[in-house]
């Protein structure tokens, strides 16, 4: 009954090929409309799928995993095969909805935002390519299919970040994004290889079977004192960390903001960056039963990242960068909550919460970005100190932005409140330290979001070279839609839809956790109100107060610089340059040397041919003697 699901990824693919090959011939807008309508169709399809899957057949117990379509793509050996297929289970269906929704919104939005840009067709072609790859990743039936689309997602993100290819910073950013994620994928690949070595299979169906039969021969296998499964799963997580920009592989995400804002909204806020979370969720069973240590690591990485990013976000001026760091911090939330989750029923709360937050976050973070896009569209600047008092110019943007801020700050009854609350509860049940961290981060989040909000929409307005005006409908409609989503998506019954064991379980509000978290959120908002509502010198003073600490934070703790040092200095100068030198001056020189030496010898011995008959005679006799010696030696 789900056979049509294959169309969901195929439509964007077809559109990509068509626009990519013929797009240049058309009027730009045609490819835009084509892409949008196509995406609309897949959106409708995936929503249908979701409804039928979750609410359609009234099922008892667990949601079953359905594979409506699967085709052999490549055979390695009898057991190891890559298949291309569609796998439907709660998380994949949910992701289908997320991806198509956001992508659809972005498509509409871009009609206005990218209007008149050079390479409009290219933009839409790449958007479709990305959507296709992301959908393929989501519905992967086996880990290798996932890896394939994982790479494709990476490359389409590379292409979109570098959309303004004549802008050096954009090129650099895209390069960075690709190489960093590629490095992470290397880990992912090794992880896959180890898994395949142990289990002789790629299929999620086999891998994520709770009985863990396929891991039988992993028992006792270990490398450098750590069990081989931990190795494998940590390496796999490395891939996820790369895509989801977990510390220390986060560096590419802020720079990725060089891309057009809709791209940031789609790829670097809502969909691609959660691929890592999705991967961990997809393999959650394996993590939980085979490599609990790895899960522990994930929890701490997530926790640290969320704190770390939140702190940086406070100091940034580029509004997109602030959003980027907030994305990091929220992703940290999700990872952490997966990390602290158990399996089954109440235990699996973290898992459910993570997916829940993934969903809501997608909505409001996309909203934030698109709104930011609309702001930038209006004032032609990314920097908040060039903004202020915009609320009267951009009413719709203002309202939607405010809603988003409240949502992320976790103000009830907006969706962010519910999802974050679940996460905090999960953390609270499992690990008090992490709970503390997350609690703090909740406050920080509220603070920096409203710092942003007040800076943009309040304060006294700068004199803009032309008065900002509200964006066209194509851009505001998505805003409103997403605002709607971020308000109400909190009421979706996730606990009965997306759970670790696919079974329904009951959740209830833990006031002990909820109330303080809301309070700290409000406190954060209050601080922001005090500092930024009116123009004041206080922030600078504070910055002065913290001095070195502030600068360090402002420069993102110099992580980029460290990376730069490693790549540019170490790899280029101290590895590849010596290698090149060695190749020229040792290996090659040796080969050439053989030749030159021969030539030298030939000049040395030319004296033998002196032209003197008697020398020749002498040589003759000498030769006879030599031969005689040879004989004496042999006989």
């Amino acid at each position: 009954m789900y056979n049509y699901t294959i169309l969901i990824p195929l439509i964007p693919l077809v559109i990509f090929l068509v626009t990519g090959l013929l797009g240049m011939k058309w009027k730009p807008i045609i490819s835009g409309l084509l892409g949008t309508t196509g995406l609309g169709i897949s959106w409708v399809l995936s929503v249908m799928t979701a409804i039928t899957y979750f609410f359609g057949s009234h099922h008892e117990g667990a949601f079953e995993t359905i594979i409506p379509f699967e085709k052999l793509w490549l055979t390695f050996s009898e057991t190891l095969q890559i298949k291309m297929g569609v796998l439907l289970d709660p998380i994949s269906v949910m992701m289908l909805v997320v991806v198509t929704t956001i992508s659809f919104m972005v498509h509409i939005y871009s009609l206005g935002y990218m209007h008149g840009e050079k390479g409009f067709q290219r933009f839409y072609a790449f958007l479709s390519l990305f959507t296709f790859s992301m959908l393929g990743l989501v519905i992967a039936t086996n880990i290798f299919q996932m890896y394939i689309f994982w790479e494709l997602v990476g490359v389409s993100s590379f292409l979109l970040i570098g959309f303004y290819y004549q802008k050096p910073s954009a090129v650099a950013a895209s390069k960075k994004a690709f190489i960093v994620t590629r490095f992470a994928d290397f880990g992912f690949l090794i992880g896959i290889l180890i898994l395949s070595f142990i289990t002789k299979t790629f299929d999620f169906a086999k891998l994520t079977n709770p009985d863990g039969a396929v891991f039988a021969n992993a028992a006792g296998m270990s490398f450098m004192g750590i069990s081989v499964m931990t190795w494998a799963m940590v390496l796999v997580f490395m891939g996820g960390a790369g895509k989801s920009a977990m510390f220390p592989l986060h560096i590419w995400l802020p720079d990725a903001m060089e891309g057009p804002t809709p791209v940031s909204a789609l790829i670097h806020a809502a969909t691609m960056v959660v691929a890592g979370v999705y991967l961990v969720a997809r393999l959650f069973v394996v993590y939980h039963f085979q490599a609990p240590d790895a899960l522990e690591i994930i929890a701490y990485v997530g926790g640290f990242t969320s704190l770390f990013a939140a702190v940086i976000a406070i100091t940034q001026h580029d509004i997109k960068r602030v959003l980027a760091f907030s994305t990091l911090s929220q992703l940290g939330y999700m990872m952490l909550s997966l990390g602290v989750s158990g399996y089954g029923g109440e235990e699996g709360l973290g898992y459910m919460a993570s997916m829940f937050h993934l969903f809501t976050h997608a909505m409001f973070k996309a909203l934030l970005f698109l709104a930011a896009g609309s702001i930038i569209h209006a004032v032609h600047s990314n920097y908040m100190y060039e903004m202020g008092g915009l609320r009267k110019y951009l009413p719709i943007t203002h309202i939607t932005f405010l809603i988003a801020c409240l949502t992320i700050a976790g103000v009830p009854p907006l969706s962010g409140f519910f999802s974050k609350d679940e996460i905090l509860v999960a953390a609270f049940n499992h690990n008090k330290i992490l709970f503390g961290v997350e609690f703090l981060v909740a406050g920080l989040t509220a603070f920096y979001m409203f710092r942003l909000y007040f800076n943009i929409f309040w304060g006294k307005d700068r004199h803009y070279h032309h008065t900002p005006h509200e964006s066209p409908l194509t851009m505001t409609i998505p805003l409103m839609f997403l605002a709607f989503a971020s308000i109400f998506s909190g009421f979706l019954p996730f606990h009965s839809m997306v759970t670790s064991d696919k079974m329904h379980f009951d959740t209830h509000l833990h006031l002990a956790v909820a109330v303080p978290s809301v309070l700290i959120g409000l406190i954060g908002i209050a601080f922001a109100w005090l500092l930024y509502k009116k123009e004041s010198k206080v922030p600078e003073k504070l910055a002065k107060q913290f001095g070195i600490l502030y600068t360090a934070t402002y420069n993102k703790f110099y992580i980029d610089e460290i990376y730069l040092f490693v790549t540019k200095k170490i790899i280029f100068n101290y590895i590849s340059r010596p290698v090149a030198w060695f190749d020229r001056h040792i290996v090659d020189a040796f080969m050439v040397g053989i030749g030159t030496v021969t030539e030298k010898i030939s000049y040395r011995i030319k004296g033998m041919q002196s032209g003197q008959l008697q020398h020749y005679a002498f040589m003759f006799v000498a030769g006879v003697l030599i031969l005689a010696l040879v004989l004496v030696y042999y006989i």
Partner: protein
Amino acid sequence: MNILTLLIVVPVLTIIGILFTKDMKGARAVSAFGMTIQLIVAATLVFMYLGLRKAGVTDEMVFISDYTWFKSLNIHYTTGVDGIAVVMIALTAIVVFAGIFASWEVEYLSREFFISLILLATGVFGFFISIDLFTMFLFYEVAVIPMYLLIGVWGSGPKESSAMKLTLMLMGGSALLMVGIFGIYFNSAPNGGPLTFNILEISKINIPVEAQRFFFPFTFIGFGILGALFPFHTWSPDGHASAPTAVSMLHAGVLMKLGGYGAFRVAMFLMPEAAHEQAWIFIILTSISVVYGAFGAIWQKDLKYINAYSSVSHCGLVLFALLMMNETAMDGGIIQMISHGLMTALFFALIGMIYGRTHTRNIYEMGGLMKVIPVLSVVYVIAGLASLGLPGLSGFVAEMTVFVGAFQHEDLFHRIVTIIAASSIVITAVYILRVVGILLFGPVKDPHFEHLRDATWFEKLSMFTLVIAIAGIGIAPLWLSDTILDSLKPIVHKLAETNVF
């Protein structure tokens, strides 16, 4: 006539045809025609082969035809192909076809150029269809020698010295090879009977192990030199840098594959025990050259050098995979040959075309080409993505098959070197993106480049032939890998049954 022999007759006829032409136009027309025929013949061969297999023919080699040549030495002209040879032939036909169009505008001594080019191709085809070691070796040298003139006369830069270096190193390789072949020949009848050069017959008997121990290195290194085996790869950067476009294409695309092909078809297939015993040395060497070549490429400025070093890395991967000696890895190795052949040919074609426009190969003197010559640039990006192993293009299929296969090895050492080799995918990404970034993106460096002419029809023909092939393999690899796997079975089986470990 046997279709395989046709593969040699067509080029020879083409050469004769060129002799009768007057000028460049005639020469290139004739060669284009001839090579198109050749492409068709190759395609028919592929389909006939698949048809036979589908019909359930299970012989190790098909289309076997056998003429006694030197009776007294039992030298035969024996042709026959299995799936591997077939796909290699198809690769060659495609690359040569593209090469002809890539060198559409060779004015200087164009007739001679095309003649030597096609002569080279003849050698390659002959090599792939030969079962008899003597003819194989003969064609091998026929393929190597025109190189000297092609580079020396039509090359650029320090062409004489590079051509000389290339020729001498390759001939040095064939010197080792010759010894190896003699060794095989004189041990081909350990328990009486006539000596033979026939690979199939030799593969049925077991060459004495001590003989294998002595001759395997000769044979393997002899082929390995052509396969750019570290540290015998240094002919490749200079050679490629100085060679004219089509020659680099053919050489990197096809000729270097002779090395890998011979290495397993002759060295490993006929001397399995020694192969098993000595594999570890060469595995280390090859995994070095995989990483080393990639790192070497990072530092280069000259487009051709970059590509030459990446070829070292990729061809290293081929030998590496073959030495893993399990079905999957060897399958990957052969797919890697095909894929690298196609994409490196595409690379060199593009470099030639770009060089023909900008008259420089130094990446720092170019920039922002994406704006001025979009088609060429886009294809360059595609080639780059193929070479860094992007899914959907051939490179990914090859590399993944190699890594997965190699990692299934029971022995920890093999798995660790696999990881080392796999690390090359990151380094590759680094240098490819570096080049793409500097060369195609960013603002246009040189005002002179503002008005460059984008790809012409023949250039497009040449490029898109290769692109289609690359994408085809990348999107639907199944038939290719299955074809190869079938033909690998007997080889792997022979290797497996003699595994001393």
